[in-house]
């Protein structure tokens, strides 16, 4: 009989926490998963925001989720069904035309052809190149390199190094001439990032997405019943292996004994002990809120304090009376993936400019999905649910507050939407705006960063969340970060939870 109540406690039932729970339980460990919200799923859940209207709050699709996790945990047997949109990206342009990227390369080429024959000719090469380079990145995403490994990679992977630091705009300008195509790619490269496409770092985001092994530009892989069904399937898998789960169970602190985690105290005062504690919260919350700075080495406290978060993503959820008309759309199937308002790199950059100075642009980058097109169960008959992910909504409004600016942001997003979907305003039954402050308050994402910490080079790999070699991410023994804050980062790949869980079970069995 162990001296602990559980082999492992996992704090936070987002998809990564759930994956760790399922992985450990499957390996025979006794596991308790604690979630402070009433619902599991974290930033990938489905909520009935308005009667009969189910919205994905947070992540909109599962295009990046690793297939090996789906297989290993038998998620399709536990109720997970993917729905793939034939069109991945539909981008209306100011001149009334629209570019559509399809899952099918030939169809994409035909659409690109309307804008540029040269781009159409290069597109297949581009996708192949991304794929080829992402395959070089993939092993690094699976195993966290040390700082020394980084030095080795620096000389062994010169092309990856080049892609890590060439500005996204320069990279795309070397490939393509058309604003419509570069806008779509630019948007993918800056998603969730508080930086514009003229900066370094966006090419890495493109590769990171491509490295999840879904081919092409990826994207457009939705979950039947909404993203919450992914959490449900993971929970079912975990429970099937004996994991326990509690919702409305907020952890107040992590219990320590001589710099070692030995359990948690809930905010109702209850203490539960465990041989190991996994936190799927971000580094700031894990170490400052749950562990407490006085229990940590000062140098480590300084590192955590210096982490960059700077969330820049807002969401606007709309319950619509019907499907709006999008300019340039000829066929409803074009609309079932991502509808993108990003007509060119300069447009994106200007949207970012406003955010740098603590404002949001009236011309924002919009990434729009209408999940009810593929899955009518999400909305009442004849109606649609639309979720708009918007950039840039800077967490830091320089003295202003999101509580006052959430609705003005909603108005600005609708005004921008009206330009590509004239008449959409008249179809809106209800709307809900979610700002970086909401992500922080309700989801515990510091500064509303959806990746639990900026995915900039200096916060990736050997440096995520803090440099390797010192404490391997945590100066507290038996406390492990397992969320997006850990290597390799955010974006609903499942990798942080998967690799943390795998490593732990291997070490336990060793």
């Amino acid at each position, binding site marked *: 009989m162990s001296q602990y109540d559980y082999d492992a406690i996992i704090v936070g039932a987002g998809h990564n926490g759930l994956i760790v729970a399922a992985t450990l339980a499957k390996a025979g460990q006794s596991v308790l998963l604690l979630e402070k919200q009433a619902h599991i799923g974290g930033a990938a859940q489905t909520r009935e925001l308005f009667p009969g209207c189910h919205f994905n709050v947070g992540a909109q699709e599962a295009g990046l989720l690793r297939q090996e996790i789906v297989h290993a945990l038998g998620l399709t047997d536990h109720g997970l069904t993917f729905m793939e949109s034939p069109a991945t990206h539909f981008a209306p342009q100011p001149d009334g035309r629209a570019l559509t990227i399809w899952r099918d390369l030939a169809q994409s080429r035909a659409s690109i052809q309307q804008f540029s024959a040269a781009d159409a000719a290069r597109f297949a090469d581009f996708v192949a190149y991304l794929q080829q380079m992402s395959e070089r990145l993939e092993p690094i995403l699976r195993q966290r390199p040390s700082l020394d490994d980084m030095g080795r990679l620096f*000389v062994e992977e*010169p092309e990856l190094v080049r892609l890590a630091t060439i500005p996204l705009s320069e990279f795309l300008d070397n490939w393509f001439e058309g604003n419509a195509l570069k806008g779509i790619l630019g948007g993918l490269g800056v998603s969730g990032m508080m930086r514009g496409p003229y900066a370094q770092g966006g090419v890495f985001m493109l590769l990171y997405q491509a490295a999840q092994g879904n081919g092409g530009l990826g994207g457009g892989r939705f979950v039947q019943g909404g993203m919450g069904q992914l959490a449900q399937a993971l929970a079912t898998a975990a429970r099937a292996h004996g994991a326990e789960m509690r919702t409305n169970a907020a952890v107040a602190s992590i219990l320590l004994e001589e710099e070692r985690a030995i359990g948690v105290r809930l905010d109702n005062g209850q203490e539960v002990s465990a041989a190991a504690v996994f936190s799927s919260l971000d580094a700031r919350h894990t170490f400052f809120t749950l562990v407490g700075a006085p229990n940590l080495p000062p140098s480590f406290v300084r590192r955590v304090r210096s982490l960059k978060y700077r969330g820049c993503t807002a969401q606007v959820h709309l319950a619509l009376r019907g499907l709006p008309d999008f300019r340039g759309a000829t066929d409803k199937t074009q609309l079932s993936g991502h509808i993108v308002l990003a007509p060119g790199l300069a447009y994106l950059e200007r949207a970012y400019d406003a955010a740098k100075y603590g404002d949001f642009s009236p011309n924002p980058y919009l990434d729009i999905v209408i999940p009810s097109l593929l899955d009518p169960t999400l909305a009442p008959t004849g109606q649609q649910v639309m979720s708009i992910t918007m950039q840039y909504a800077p967490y830091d409004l320089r003295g202003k507050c999101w509580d006052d600016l959430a609705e003005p942001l909603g108005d600005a997003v609708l005004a921008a939407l009206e330009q590509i979907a004239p008449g959409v305003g008249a179809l809106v039954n209800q709307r809900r705006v979610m700002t970086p402050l909401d992500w922080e308050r309700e989801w515990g994402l510091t500064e509303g960063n959806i990746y639990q910490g900026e995915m*900039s080079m200096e916060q990736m790999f050997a440096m995520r969340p803090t440099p390797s070699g010192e404490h391997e991410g945590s100066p507290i023994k038996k406390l492990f970060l397992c969320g997006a804050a850990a290597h390799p980062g955010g974006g609903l790949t499942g990798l942080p939870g998967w690799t943390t869980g795998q490593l732990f079970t291997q070490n336990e069995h060793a």
Partner: protein
Amino acid sequence: MTKQYDAIIIGGGHNGLTCAAYLARAGQRVLVLEKRYLVGGATVTEEIVPGFQFTVFSYLVSLLRTEVIQELELVKHGLMLLPFESTLDMAPNGDYLYRAADHWATYRNMARHSRRDAEAYDEYKLRMRHVAHAVRYMMNHAPPNLNLAGADAPALAGLARHLQHMDRDVLHTFVQLLTMSAADFLDQWFETDIVKAALSTSGLIGSMVGPYSPGSALVLLYHYLGEIDGVYRDWRFAKGGTGGVARALARSAQSFGAEIRTNAPVAHLLIQNNAVRGVVLEDEEEIWADAVISSLTPQLTYLKLAGEQNLPADLVREVKSWNSMGSAGKVNLALDRLPEFACMKGTTHSQAYYAGAFSFGASLDYLERAYDDAKYGAYSARPYIDAGIISVADPDIAPPGKHVMTCFVMYAPRYLKESSWPEQRAAFGDTVINTLAEYIPNIHDILVGRQVNTPWDIEERIGITGGNIFHGELRLDQMFGRRPTSRTGGYDTPLHNYYICGSSAHPGGAISGAPGRLAAMQILNDVGQGTMGNS
């Protein structure tokens, strides 16, 4: 035709001259070919307004390798570096930050803004010095050929050993510096805007990045490499302007037997069987040599002089995507008397600050907005200006009592979206003067002449393609083993007997002499003369 020289160096900039001096010193018969009437390239001093000597393009010397000064006996040949005592950064809100050679004067002034920042400054400088010290290895060694990872094992092993022995904290700071923005990097130490802004500007000089742009910290690090022995006192003015550096290098090269020909523009190379045999001048004169070394930009080195048809397609593609777009202009002012700084009125500082450097626009947002204009193809409506009144330290460059002020102006993109530089040059100069007037109320009264250099002028007059003062952005993807292409190692080219030695070669731009020296070492190695100097 038989060879007339062992080596021909194309371009008489400071790196070309450095390379020439080293080769001549090793006994090679060397010819330097310069298209202009004087040597120096971007390190020239010219009398533009009668009686006023302008350090036309470059203005500060900080990275010049100690090895170069000593091995080429530059002091004997007239090099004189004048220390400047202080830096005065002026903010658009009328505030200022004064840093002096006196540690406590700096501390007191910084503490005026924030005691915490004043405390952190020492710690910050110490960390930067440690990083600079660790990186010095790379400044003094040719980079490995990234295309031949296996074949270049010794260079790789040396680097790996070096990295492994770096202190972990220093290594981590180094890694941060590679990709962070200057503002984020400085955030780790400092809290006040003026301090962060003043320190961030070293991350912007000559580059098309703002303080919030990822990558600007690398430029910051690059500018710290000259400060190995301590504080910014190691930034110097050269006696006679930076042309004084070129003159000393030229004299050194000539003392070792090198020949220098000015007004001798090279049209193209003489190539036989994938090997370079010499050069053809624009007047069609042919000159034969065992080795030809180009100090020009990659575009000129490869596309113009060698010709695309003689080069591998991969290399041509890389050279065509080489980013050497300028981001700055240089405005030189002839002044009737010393300017009065509005922010210093009523303060108790002695006037020692006149002997130092100044900057105008020390605010992060101000700097970033200046960059915003440029990234969409306009020059900054309110530019950042990095300046110095060199005649205070070196009165000989101006008539008695009068002064020369050098102004490095950011940002000025190479191509203007709405117009062209010849049309906008005067308006750009006016913008600079008007911006200065915010800080120097009497500027219009004391101005007796000016020279405005735009990126267009830099390209047209001294041949730096794109006008980038470093011959190419200092970005990780354009540094080290990729500078200027990943297709060659060190200072080689795919053509036999053809080498590079300019700022577009490792380790990069600024008046360091490092590319010229390292190239010479490699060439001498190739011809079996081993290394020279104390490497």
